């Protein structure tokens, strides 16, 4: 489970957010649906920026200061100032924003649970030629 897991999570969250937008717009309320979509985008943007900041700052190979400062300068405005304007604008219901923001964490939890229950990490570690893996091939 490396950094590619996080990229898959962000892609899956975007897909779930668009599906939730379409579902809620059709069956409930268009304003609430836009709130979910914007909250989802806010969550993805925040997660992407957090990933970039941490990979730039917390690394055993030395810090690229310019990249770290640039990402930190992008991340905190995206999270806090952007969130403040979204919340205070009154265009979207706060509960819808919260629901959209939560989608990413639901996706992370479900993907992690899937990896545990399907034993994906164990399969990646096990050599291909062991009798156990040969027995599972069909």
């Amino acid at each position: 489970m490396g950094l590619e897991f996080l990229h898959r999570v962000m892609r899956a969250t975007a897909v779930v957010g668009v599906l939730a937008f379409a579902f809620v717009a059709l069956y409930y309320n268009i304003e609430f649906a836009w709130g979910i979509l914007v909250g989802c985008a806010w969550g993805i943007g925040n997660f992407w920026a957090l990933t970039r900041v941490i990979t730039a700052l917390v690394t055993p190979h030395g810090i690229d200061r310019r990249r770290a400062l640039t990402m930190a300068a992008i991340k905190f405005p995206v999270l806090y100032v952007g969130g403040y304007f979204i919340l205070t604008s009154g265009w979207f219901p706060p509960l819808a924003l919260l629901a959209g923001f939560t989608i990413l964490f639901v996706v992370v939890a479900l993907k992690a649970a899937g990896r545990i229950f399907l034993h994906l990490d164990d399969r990646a570690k096990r050599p291909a030629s062991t009798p156990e893996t040969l027995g599972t091939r069909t």
Partner: protein
Amino acid sequence: MDFKTALSFALPLGLAIAALGSAFGLGRAVAAAMDAMGRQPEAAGKIQTGMIIGCALIEALTIYALVAFFILQGRIA
């Protein structure tokens, strides 16, 4: 003390406690990750992934507190 006055005191206090807890949590997470990376630099990718997910979850709790603040703020006025 009526409901609105109590809420006016409790809201900023609650948000401050949430921010403080989040700051402590993030600090501990990053310190532990740096320590682990120092011991096992070859596992840096896995440690970073776990730390990013943990940091995002910690931050999300602060965001929830912020949103709750905005929802309840409307009841004061």
